[in-house]
């Protein structure tokens, strides 16, 4: 057994240099390095709810950006006849949902009225009509679903000569009947909607005391009460006529389609088709309209765009101010910190409501409501961000690596921006993102209360839309439903997204709530 340490004599010529002309160095990593953000991304990706929330936020953002551009309507659009029409989605109409029909309970007169519109226009105005029920007072009631678009029926319209000609030309080209015969009016108290333009049928009792019941023929049909050429003044009409009217070719009298008056031509038009003629597209309001006849879909997108714009600018500005202020406070500490803290203490103690009010009173007239609101948010909003940054600076500035960097001669600026800030960036970004829903929420609250008014001809805000719909909650809940739904989804998404970000940047805080 030889000594283990004893090396056998190796002949010199067997020895050689391991590397003679090579330099020693570390081998380059084959794998890609995982940086701070990549690391956070890997964790974020695994948080399903946060990813879903992020996708939702992007979708809502796209909705807010794109819809006002491609929509047929804008915030200015107001239709006097399609007020409070129900949501209608052409893609789903065939299924009997989301098609603008509203369940109503109607008397016999109402039944006659709504069915008559259907008979004259050929569109489905009522459906699912129940068997009539008779209540204690002897009145007959039907429950039915009425199309809130078609139920507008006919309106009287005064057209200029050019419009009158254009409309006739439109009728000839498309083959769509827009102008319908005028009817004999009679003195009656029974006028349902549009100044009696829908009363084209004979009433059972044409006296002023009429209860609106229609006179039926022997087949149970409405009897037309159109104005005949023989007994009325009429304007020239050369376009298509409704079925059963030959325009006098058989020598009999024909229906009157227009009358001339001082301002132009009085015609009776089918509003649904007239809308198409006037605007060039079909009246379809995806989310319905509000009491002013504005398209809720477009207004919502426009209001959302405003909210996003405000919230993101506020968040960015506060990010910069807060980061600077907090960095100086936290890094220098001591008297500087105490003095600066007092300032932010005072600012944070001012109720936000008061700040908004004062900014509005002082600045809104000069720079506009939106800018004054932005100022108000910035005025006190950065305080929270500054506190967050300050805390991070206190956490990091005493650590050894900072000491090492300082010993190596790093200046304050380098320490702040190169060494401390990157470590704190995750918390700061999370704070910024989580402040966005707060701004959107308080903006909608303030405009709902009417403390600020962001309503102009080209923009609206979600709070204003809610305030406009509040009085109609019982009758037209859809006016409030969609803005509420939008803001709820937005808030939930932002909170989930923010929580996901926080967990991704600070895995040690997972599950803890601020």
């Amino acid at each position: 057994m030889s000594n283990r340490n004893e090396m056998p004599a190796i002949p010199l010529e067997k020895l050689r240099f391991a590397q003679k002309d090579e330099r020693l160095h570390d081998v380059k990593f084959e794998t890609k390095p995982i940086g701070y953000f990549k690391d956070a991304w890997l964790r974020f990706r695994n948080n399903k709810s946060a990813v879903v929330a992020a996708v939702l936020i992007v979708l809502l953002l796209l909705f807010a950006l794109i819809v006002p551009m491609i929509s047929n309507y804008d915030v200015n659009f107001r239709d006097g006849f399609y007020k409070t029409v129900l949501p209608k989605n052409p893609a789903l109409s065939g299924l009997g949902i989301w098609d603008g029909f509203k369940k109503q309970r109607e008397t016999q007169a109402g039944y006659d009225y709504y069915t008559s519109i259907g008979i004259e226009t050929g569109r489905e105005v009522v459906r699912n009509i129940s068997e009539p029920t008779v209540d204690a007072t002897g009145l007959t009631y039907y429950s039915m679903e009425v199309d809130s678009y078609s139920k507008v029926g006919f309106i009287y319209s005064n057209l200029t000569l050019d419009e009158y000609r254009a409309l006739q030309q439109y009728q000839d080209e498309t083959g769509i009947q827009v102008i319908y015969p005028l009817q004999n009016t009679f003195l009656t108290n029974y006028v349902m909607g549009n100044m009696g333009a829908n009363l084209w049928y004979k009433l059972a009792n044409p006296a002023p005391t009429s209860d609106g019941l229609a006179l039926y023929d022997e087949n149970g049909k409405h009897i037309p009460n159109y104005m005949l050429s023989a007994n009325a003044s009429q304007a020239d009409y050369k376009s298509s006529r409704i079925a059963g009217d030959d325009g006098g070719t058989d020598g009999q009298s024909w229906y009157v389609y227009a009358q001339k008056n001082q301002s132009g031509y009085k015609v009776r038009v089918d509003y649904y088709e007239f809308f198409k003629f006037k605007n060039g597209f079909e009246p379809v309001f995806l989310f319905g309209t509000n009491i002013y006849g504005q398209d809720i879909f477009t207004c919502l997108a426009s209001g959302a765009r405003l909210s996003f714009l405000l919230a993101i600018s506020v968040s960015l500005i506060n990010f910069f101010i807060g980061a600077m202020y907090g960095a100086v406070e936290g890094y220098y500490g001591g008297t500087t910190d105490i003095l600066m803290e007092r300032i932010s203490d005072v600012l944070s103690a001012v109720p936000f409501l008061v700040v908004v009010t004062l900014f509005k009173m002082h600045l809104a007239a000069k720079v506009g409501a939106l800018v004054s609101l932005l100022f108000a948010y910035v005025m006190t909003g950065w305080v929270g961000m500054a506190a967050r940054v300050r805390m991070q600076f206190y956490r990091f500035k005493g650590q050894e690596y900072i000491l090492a960097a300082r010993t190596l001669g790093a200046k304050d600026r380098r320490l702040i921006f190169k060494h401390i800030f990157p470590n704190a960036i995750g918390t700061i970004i999370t704070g910024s993102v989580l402040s966005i829903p707060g701004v959107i929420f308080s903006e909608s609250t303030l405009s709902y209360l009417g403390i600020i008014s962001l309503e102009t001809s080209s923009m609206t805000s979600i709070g204003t839309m809610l305030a406009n719909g509040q009085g109609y909650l019982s009758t037209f809940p859809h006016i409030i439903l969609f803005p509420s739904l939008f803001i709820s989804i937005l808030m939930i998404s932002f909170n989930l997204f923010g929580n996901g970000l926080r967990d991704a940047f600070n895995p040690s805080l997972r599950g803890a709530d601020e």
Partner: protein
Amino acid sequence: MRTMGKYIVKRILLMFLTMFIIMTICFILIKMLPLPAVREMGRDVNLILAKREAMGYNKPLLVQYFLLLKNVFLHWDWGVGEQMYEALNVWDVLVQKLPYTVLVNLYSILLAIPLGLVFGIYAALKKNRWQDHVVSTLVVVFISVPSYVYAFIVQYLFCYKLGWFPLTIESLESTAFFSGRMLVSMMPAILSLGFGVIAGLTRYTRAELSEVLTSEFMLLARTKGLTKAQATSRHALRNAMVVILPMIIGEFIGILGGSLIIEKIFAIPGVGSLYVSAVNVRDYNFFMALTVFYTFIGLASSIVIDISYGIIDPRIRMGSKK
């Protein structure tokens, strides 16, 4: 305890200093605004101008401020309403409105505290099980959805569709303040306010309790033979309460401020409505008084929270050097 007393005094003094600064700034900013136009419909313009002269509106700013301070500190007189509640004492009107705000918020907190605690404790005990996930998901949803959305839902469902509650609250003329009818008429507002508070409290309780439940003294408690229920109620809950109770106390102070939007939706004649109308008609005396009022509530609640930490848990020494 001496440091505690010193700390409290220091905080309160600091609070008054802050309030004084804010009051000064707000006063200057308000007085820089033009006075509301003299309404002429059926009113004597000269009378209004004379009234303003008498109220000192034409004096220099500093003199006016001194007058305000003198009136407030010596007589607790915040002036009289100029644009609304004309010639009525501002403070009296405020005090008269306060009970509505307080009562609605008090009821909603009383409803929320037990529910929030129960849900939070349940979720913490079932941590990472499906029950916990359900509660936590609901909490995120309920915390995120704005209170006015609840108000719309409650109003639509309970007031219109089911008809359980009246649309607006009863007036004091028709029923007593603490009567059942008043409570029923306040229910929609109480519910709308409650959802958010319940969710907030649940989240807080769950976070705190689940942290305590994993600590080592809980293991010790189990080792010495306590059942899980005993250990949880005697050790974990008490320790979690150190953090939860101050939050609840803070909520109680916050109820004075109330919720503007809920008061508007349910037409509650509270302080919030008073503020909104003061802003809309530009009554600067009311605005001034309410500004100070809201500032005070904000500052007071943060002080009370901080102090209550020290009182509930003597281990937390406030104001000590380290």
